[in-house]
């Protein structure tokens, strides 16, 4: 065992999201293109059906609530969208008929434009 053994506890970065510090710009931009995105119920059907395991649900939450607050986007939720096959299964299973495929495309564009930190 190393002599450099760490002490039993340390300081973690705060996890709390501060909704007062929201930045609405990205959210507004995305929901303008895909208005149905706002009606996400967070049911998880899209995540369960995704062949490459993209957390569309996390992205919905991120877009709906916290995209404006870079904390969530920086923690990586939308990043996985790069693996998207654009198969559209998520759109087929969505009970609210959200255009998830279009949203994936828009998210990819934002990543390319560096609007979302990767």
């Amino acid at each position, binding site marked *: 065992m190393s002599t450099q053994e760490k002490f039993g506890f340390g300081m973690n970065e705060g996890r709390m999201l501060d909704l007062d510090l929201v930045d609405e710009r990205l959210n507004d931009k995305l929901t303008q293109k895909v*208005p149905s995105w706002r009606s996400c119920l967070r049911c998880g059907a899209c995540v369960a059906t995704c062949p490459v395991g993209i957390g569309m649900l996390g992205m919905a939450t991120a877009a709906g609530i916290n995209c404006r607050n870079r904390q*969530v986007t920086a923690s990586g939720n939308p990043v996985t969208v790069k693996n998207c096959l654009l198969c559209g299964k998520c759109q087929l299973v969505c009970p609210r008929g959200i255009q998830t495929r279009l949203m994936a495309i828009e998210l990819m564009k934002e990543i390319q434009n560096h609007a979302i930190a990767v």
Partner: protein
Amino acid sequence: MSERLKHNPDNQSSTTSHRVAVIGAGPAGAAAAQTASMLGLAVDWYEKETFAGGKLNRYYQLFPGREEAEVVYRDLFDPNHYREVNKQFGRFVTGIEKQAGRLRILVDESQAKDADAVIVANGFDFFDARLKEEFGYGIYPRVITSPDLEYHFKTDISRLRRGEEDPEAVAFVHCVGSRDQQVGVPYCSRVCCITGIKQAIEIREQFPRCRVYNFYIDIRAYGNGYEELYRQAQEEYAIRFIRGRVSEASEDQYGRIRVKAEDTLLGKPVKLTVDWLVLLVGMVPACPELMLNGQSDSHGNGRSFLKADNPHASQAVASCPGLFLAGACSGPMSIPESVASGRSAAVQVFEYLKNRNSSL
């Protein structure tokens, strides 16, 4: 059944000698009194206030269609839609007694009046939000309840401004005094979810730049058109629904309300400062004095909703012969449900008195 209905017009006069007491003049009581009088029964109509309408008088718009609350009393309280009704408004019914097969209504402590049948429609009370101390109702002036907000909309919504400025953020807390064992309210009040959705939309219409958050446990939008309104709130009005219960509210140095909650879908704690925190209060049973002995087993504050004898067969017939229930005295109900329940109770009183007559 069909034969009996056929004979109704001829037999109507035989029931007019019967007196029916209706207790309460909210939507359920009005529907019961109206229907009973139109069926030819003599109605004694009791109401503790001097006017009809109950809590409806303080409502602004109705869910899910957003009609003005007045539409309910336009028809329900129209005197042309009544026959023999003896209005006893401004009189408080303190109890109901059963004596030698008849029921007696005890009024204003000393007086009593006989009745052949009684329709209890004394409604409900709003949950006292002060019991949930962590939300600060009654402590912080910017924490209000859903009926408070409804009344502001009805009278003067500009009270929500600070000076000339519109509110920047408003949050709604669902299930205050519903589904909460801590305060003895184990049941769901059913209508608060849709009330919160409706009021959130109204806030956005009134103050378009205001951000609106709804903190919910789960959304129970059960009625016709409710889910559509929920979706509309999300899509058209961009209202944010955050799944998680507000754990506490406190006042900041400017008198705004700081809210802490867990976003259980993100798995992260959130905090938020709002101009107004609106508590969607549940429905609790109204005055306990009205209960007949042995009618109810109470929970919580010693009060209980009244129970139908066989709720699967009829929501209106209580276990005591001659006693009928209408509206939210038997449990949380929306206005259309209360009205339907009031009409149903009146029809069943009519049936009951006719059957009793023929058996004598």
